């Protein structure tokens, strides 16, 4: 595979699609479950937090020029730390893609294809992402940039079509379970921005690395806007007590949309658009897995490796025995592993790497003079 060179809009959309896919699937439920009716305030707060975090990340990555966090890990702790960090990220990617895949496939099976077996749906998704990876990584990113615009428009149309059924009373009480719950425990809701992991990895693949800060801010702002939009639409749409129990809340809201008496139950059309979203996301995950493995393990040819990775994702996706286990994985394990890997471990590595670089920089300066 040739080296990827992404331009400004393409890389911004790459990061946005992570958040959007999680939003369409189960994430708003867990957000609302944590913070209750204060979710709108909480999501705005979390967006601002994410912007602050990104500005810190940008500053920490500055002395390393065009390199991403894997290079920082190598710089900090040699090859061992690099391999540990890479394996951690790989495990994270495989885990989230498998859980999402299983969730979406179960959903498709329940709603539209009751008699199909689960493995056919899973393997269809994975085979498509493999075929598309064979066509070239740059083409996936291009197609993703083209598809993002209909997807974003569809979400806005969904939110607008629901306006007649929203009830503003459901936002009260405004601070939900309390100030401490909203702002301190609710800060864990930042796992919604796990797309920041892609920002940490993307720097060497940019055409013009001066755009890095612009890309980061743009993608976080777009993700934040859509997060607030969907969470507020869902919060005002359904009573929040029952929201926490259901799956795929955005699907439920599309079931309700009706345009006069003529178009009702238009949820199949939205499903069509979300299939693109999900396929795009899956292909991007497989692409990133192969790219960072290429970087760390110095692989020359990646096709065989991507087949193995897809097979592992398939196996992990078949692991949960039933939907209860799946929900547990998705709400609890995903949340805390996301926070742990993206926000804790990466931060520690970045900070230590930055300090070491500054120390070395000082040392060199001292020696020269």
């Amino acid at each position, binding site marked *: 595979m040739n080296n990827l060179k992404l*331009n400004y809009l393409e890389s911004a959309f790459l990061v946005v699609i992570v958040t959007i896919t999680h939003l369409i699937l189960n994430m708003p439920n867990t957000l609302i479950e944590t913070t209750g009716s204060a979710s709108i305030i909480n999501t705005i707060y979390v967006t601002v937090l994410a912007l602050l975090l990104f500005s810190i990340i940008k500053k920490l990555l500055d002395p390393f020029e065009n390199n991403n966090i894997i290079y920082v890990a190598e710089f900090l702790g040699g090859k061992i730390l690099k391999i540990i960090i890479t394996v951690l990220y790989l495990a994270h990617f495989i885990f989230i893609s498998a859980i999402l895949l299983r969730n979406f496939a179960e959903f498709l099976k329940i709603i*539209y294809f009751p008699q199909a077996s689960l493995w056919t749906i899973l393997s269809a998704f994975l085979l498509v992402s493999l075929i598309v990876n064979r066509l070239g990584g740059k*083409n*996936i990113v*291009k197609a993703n*940039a*083209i598809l993002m615009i209909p997807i974003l428009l569809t979400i806005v149309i969904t939110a607008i079509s629901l306006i007649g059924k929203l009830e503003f009373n459901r936002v009260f009480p405004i601070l939900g379970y309390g100030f401490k719950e909203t702002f301190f425990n609710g800060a864990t809701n930042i796992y919604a921005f796990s797309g920041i992991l892609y920002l940490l990895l993307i720097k060497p693949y940019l055409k013009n690395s001066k755009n890095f800060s612009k890309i980061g801010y743009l993608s976080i702002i777009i993700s934040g806007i859509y997060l607030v939009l969907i969470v507020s639409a869902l919060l005002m749409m359904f009573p929040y007590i029952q929201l926490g129990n259901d799956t795929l809340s955005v699907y439920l809201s599309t079931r309700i949309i009706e345009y006069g*008496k003529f178009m009702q*139950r238009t949820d199949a059309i939205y499903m069509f658009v979300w299939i693109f979203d999900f396929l795009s996301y899956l292909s991007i995950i497989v692409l990133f897995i192969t790219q960072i493995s290429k970087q760390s393990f110095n692989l020359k040819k990646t096709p065989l490796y991507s087949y193995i990775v897809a097979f592992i994702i398939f196996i992990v996706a078949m692991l949960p025995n039933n939907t209860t286990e799946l929900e547990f994985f998705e709400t609890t394990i995903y949340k805390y592993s996301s926070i742990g890997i993206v926000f804790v471990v990466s931060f520690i590595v970045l900070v230590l790497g930055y300090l070491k670089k500054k120390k070395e920089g000082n040392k060199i300066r001292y020696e020269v003079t």
Partner: protein
Amino acid sequence: MNIKDFFYKLNNESKDSHEFILPNKESSSDKLQPEKMLKNRFVYNNLDVNLEYVNSRFNSFLNSDVKIREFLIHVKSRQYKAFILYIDGMIDKNSINDFVLNPLMLRTRSNTYEGSQIISEAIANNIMVRKRKKFNIVDYILDSLLPHNDVERVKSFDKIADDVASGNCILFIDTVNFAFDIDAKKFDKRSIAEPKNEHVIMGSQEAFVENLRTNTSIIRRNLHNENLVVESLTIGEDNKNECAICYLKNVANSDLVSEVKYRLNNLEIDYLTSIGELQQLIKDDIDTTIPESISTERVDKAINHILQGRIVVIYNSVPYVIVVPATFLDFLSSPEDINIHHFFANLLKIIRGFSFLITLLLPGLYIAITTYHCELIPTGLLFSIIASRSNVPFMVIVEIILMEISFEIIREAGVRVPSPLGSTVGIVGALILGQAAVQADIVSPILIINIAITAITSFAIPDYIFSFHLRINRFLFVLLGFLAGFFGIGIGIFVYLVKMCSLKSFGVSFLAPYAPLTRDKGNGYLLDSPWKREKRASYLATKKSQVQKETSMKWRKK
């Protein structure tokens, strides 16, 4: 009849039967040796040797239209033997008679002139010194005796053969070791007519013809620029057909031009008679059916593309030209778009975009919805669909495939039907097949409407080969929709989109300007107002990207 003959006939086979079997392997009498021996020769000094060579090379004893006319040339009271070689029907006989044979054969003042030309004169010491030009028969004939506008010297018999075959007349003279190549072509050809397949209401009605020189003359007539370059090359060993490349030297990217010339020059084939084949031979990606160059028969469309910075390839004997590089959006643009107000043009472009989607997806979506997603249909429509389908014995997929295939058969038959029967076939096809099939309860009327809409939208696509591509891929989507509903169609669209993103047409990304998503001006699908079209398309990497100044309507400014 004799009894003897009768018994003889019974015993032996009839001698009336004529059998001819084409042997698989070449028989020894059929080898190409004489041709090989004749190649790579140069004109001889002796006229008789030249005559013998020409007779054997051009098969003049077999060919009834290869003509050789021997005569004597008078030059300065000397006589030389000579002959001309031409193919009857391809030369202008009057021009040869008046301007070649006449001045050479008849005694005139110029060919009996005895003196020699004075170069310079000088007077020194009361003595006049004159320098005279040494007499050279070749220079004399070329400069003074052949009043024809296109005469060249040739030495190689291979070039002579090529030129005779394309309609030139060659003059051989005794004791001269080269020949004169006289271009006096005249043959019957089709005149410039209306375009047959691409109609435009408010544009020019000129179309290309089969003759290469006429085509290049049309382009030159309509594009007055000294930077317009028309380069010529030949393709094919057996059929040395001429091919011309036209571009604007100060606009088109030079790397692009060299790439086009490189690909055209490196085609090692014996013959190439169709431009469709040429289009496929110079494609970047060979595993798709999608075309990667625009083919057009309209002159104004080709000129527009040259002015934008693209390259036009004209091929002899075909009235179509191909334009490279091409992007996906060019296949959905029509030459009428710049003639009308940009608002209407944009509406039409949007309609064409929709018709692209409908042609590709409508039958697939219909079968996906009726099989897997019935709840999408409004109640009233659903009940009328069920009511109309209640007596139909087939499943939806069988109906669709039946009707699609019969429609393709009708279309194919319509191409070849003789014109007196043309309208009959239309009536037969549409009315009888459709109406009677509905009344016999073989298909449902909603499906007929579906297929008819799909067929009509496929005619809304401006490019001929692109609509073929869509017609075939439609079956793929029908199959996917039947097997897996919206999920299958979603997968199909996604893979199709990524595949199209990976295509390139002469180095330009096929889905430019949307594939590497940039924010350059002047690139998009929808047209700007004419006073805002300031730049050429950035993906063509032209040398001169500014087309208009910022305020092109200077008359508005005070």
